[in-house]
């Protein structure tokens, strides 16, 4: 077996791992597993909860009073928009057979989707068989397609037009999210084939959203008063509720990505918990040491950084490995959201890049370092999926590659989309609207 082939196999298996290490495609009269299905239905519900009210509150709690409702509106409207778009075309482009780069139109309006038998993704050798019906897979994936663009909005909070938001996010979902999801999670996808490890969406969700946010923050420009006025959050209580629901919902995100109510799901849940706790503590102590006080915003930001960083690794690392990822993510994201941002001078309002972009990169790379083969042993791959520490430097290279590819494609494509939308409807509200607050000027409402 040549090295390339071995890697390809490894890739397929990585994804298969993500897909619950299913056996060969089921015969047509196979039954779905009710336990696995129960867990995936639950996971779908709590991943939806991550966006509404999770992200909505996390973000709304960090803006100034005059923009609280507009910030909630972004997450809620995106949830509605993607619910429809995913059904119409998004799922088909992401998970339709297609080629190495994008799916096809075979599932437009979900035509041809089955719901009463176990689902097999892809075909031929690389096919991944599930114990749940396709409709549940469609729903679970939809919640990922919803949260990713909702995350972006934090970067340009306080100044983006609502109409521009709908255009940008709608296009982005179809032209950026769907292809990247196909690359990584469809057996035909080129990053899947390459063997990139991404258990629950470090590249597809977090690096993708993080870089798109950074580009958008730069294109739309800084908030009026940035650096001089006091932009401190109106009501951090909301942000704490949001972060808490993100943490809880992330169990659906990561343990749900095992696609089964299995020990693997349990391992992913444990890794998530340990990394998150460690990252929250790490950010807290880093801030305490350098600024003199441990802030509430700091500890919740640290927790989210941990959740982000463990996402690609969740099913591949030991509890000890999770601890390392958590500590590194907490410290690095703290630095990225404070010193680095200051040094580079962009105004990423709620640190989408600092937390999701940087946290996603930390996680993707450390997955390549810390992947423990023992957790992914199969008959076909007796040594499992190993990282640098177990003597497999190739995996780290693949991770670098996948990270770079996502950063470049998402960055460039987002830039183009933003320029187009700017030309059509304009990205930024008027100076007066920004001053009066988006709540009143865009939505005619206000928090009293």
């Amino acid at each position, binding site marked *: 077996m040549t090295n390339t082939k071995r890697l390809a196999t490894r890739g397929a298996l990585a994804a298969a791992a993500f897909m619950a290490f299913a056996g060969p495609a089921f015969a047509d009269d196979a039954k779905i597993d009710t336990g696995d299905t129960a867990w995936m239905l639950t996971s779908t519900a709590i991943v939806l909860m991550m966006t509404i009210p999770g992200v909505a509150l996390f973000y709304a709690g960090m803006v100034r009073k005059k923009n609280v409702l507009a910030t909630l509106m972004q997450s809620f409207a995106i949830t509605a928009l993607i619910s429809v778009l995913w059904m119409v075309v998004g799922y088909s482009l992401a998970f339709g057979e297609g080629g190495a780069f994008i799916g096809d139109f075979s599932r437009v309006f979900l035509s041809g989707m089955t719901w009463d038998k176990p689902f097999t993704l892809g075909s031929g050798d690389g096919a991944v068989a599930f114990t749940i019906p396709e409709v549940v897979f469609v729903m679970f994936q939809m919640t990922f397609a919803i949260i990713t663009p909702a995350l972006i909005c934090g970067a340009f909070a306080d100044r983006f037009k609502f109409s521009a938001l709908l255009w940008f996010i709608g296009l982005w979902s179809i032209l950026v999210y769907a292809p990247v999801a196909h690359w990584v999670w469809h057996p035909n996808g080129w990053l899947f084939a390459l063997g990139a490890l991404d258990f629950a969406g470090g590249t597809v969700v977090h690096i993708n959203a993080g870089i798109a946010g950074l580009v958008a923050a730069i294109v739309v420009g800084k908030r009026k008063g940035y650096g001089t006025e*006091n*932009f*401190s*959050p109106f009501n951090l209580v909301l942000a704490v509720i949001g972060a808490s629901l993100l943490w809880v919902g992330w169990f659906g995100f990561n343990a749900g990505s095992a696609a089964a109510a299995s020990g693997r799901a349990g391992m992913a849940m444990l890794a998530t918990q340990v990394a998150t706790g460690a990252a929250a503590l790490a950010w807290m102590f880093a*801030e305490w040491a350098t*600024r003199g*006080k441990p*802030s509430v*915003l*700091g500890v919740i*930001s640290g927790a989210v950084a941990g959740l982000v960083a463990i996402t690609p690794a969740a099913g591949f690392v030991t509890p000890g490995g999770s601890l390392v990822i958590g500590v590194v993510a907490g410290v690095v994201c703290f630095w990225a*959201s*404070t*010193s680095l*941002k*200051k040094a580079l001078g962009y105004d990423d309002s709620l*640190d989408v890049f600092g937390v999701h972009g940087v946290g996603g990169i930390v996680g993707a790379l450390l997955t390549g370092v810390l992947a423990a083969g023992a957790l992914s042993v199969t008959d076909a791959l007796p040594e499992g999926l190993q990282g640098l520490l177990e003597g497999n430097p190739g995996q780290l290279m693949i991770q670098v590659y996948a990270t770079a590819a996502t950063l470049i494609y998402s960055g460039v494509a987002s830039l183009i989309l933003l320029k187009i939308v700017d030309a059509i409807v304009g990205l930024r509200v008027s100076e007066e609207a920004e001053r009066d607050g988006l709540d009143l000027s865009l939505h005619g409402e206000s928090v009293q």
Partner: protein
Amino acid sequence: MKMVVAIIKPFKLDEVREALTALGVQGLTVTEVKGFGRQKGQTEIYRGAEYSVSFLPKVKVEIAVTDSLVERVVESIQKSANTGKIGDGKIFVLDVSHAVRIRTGETNAEAL
């Protein structure tokens, strides 16, 4: 008749009110305000940015009193609101040319 306006530290409100009640003051009006002065605020941290909060929470107490009571009212506030630390606040006395009790239409001293 005078309007005594006192800017005090919020936690002193109850003490001041009691001191005034002891003098026979029967009514007053309180507003939450923010004060800017010699006292410097704490530093708030926000994702790496540090803001020294220049406006501090204070409470404004307004008491309309007859001329005869003014001096004692001012003195009593000065004592009860005092902590000896910077930021204790100020008392201002303004003239009131006319006062009316809305319920009864009584005016001036009777209106208080």
